[in-house]
């Protein structure tokens, strides 16, 4: 089981690193929101793997909170970006798309 833990850790660390480069490079705020969502998924996988490795369920409530919070985060960023776009462009079609 510890070999599995090492493999999963390496894979998740690489995934997290690649995701971080996308968060840093952007270019738009929505790109960063999507990448942050993926980073959150990687973190959830890491916590769940830790719980599976040590057979210890202490961290499981954290997963429930993360599953809900990630959603709130990216929805609010999307709303913010949509409203900013509405005011900055002439908004030909957006009024009817709400």
């Amino acid at each position, binding site marked *: 089981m510890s070999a599995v833990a090492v493999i999963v850790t390496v894979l998740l660390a690489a995934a997290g690193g690649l995701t971080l480069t*996308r968060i840093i490079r952007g270019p*738009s705020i929505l790109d960063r929101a999507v990448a942050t969502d993926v980073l959150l998924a990687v973190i959830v996988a890491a916590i769940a793997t830790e719980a599976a490795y040590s057979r210890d369920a202490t961290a499981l409530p954290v997963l429930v909170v993360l599953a809900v919070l990630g959603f709130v985060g990216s929805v609010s960023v999307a709303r913010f970006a949509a409203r900013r776009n509405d005011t900055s462009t002439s908004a030909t079609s957006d009024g009817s*798309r709400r």
Partner: protein
Amino acid sequence: MSLDVAVDVAASICLIAGALLSLAAGIALVRFPDLLTRMHAAAKPQVLGLLLVLVGCALRLRTGVDITTLVLVGAFSLATAPVAAHMVGRAAYPHEDIRTDLLVTDELAAHLDRVAEEREHSAAA
């Protein structure tokens, strides 16, 4: 091979597959050309990857209380991920940099043009 070992092996396979999907999503995030294609990459660890990791975790923990919590995590994620994706996609579509040269067809642009036309029409009347 006892049942215990078999279940542990299954759990390991699930965990590694989930981690591989996360890695593929990371690679895709860096390599894909625009926001919408990157969102496809994001859906992968959020749905199948997450389910695999949760199944792996449940196979290791094997107690009722923990499994109910894991079921809840899965249900919440599956219910909320499409909403978030739809909000982001909708905020992105006409404004952000979409590589239209890579699109085979764009049937939404025609729809938005039609909606704008109808609005102008009703405003003029």
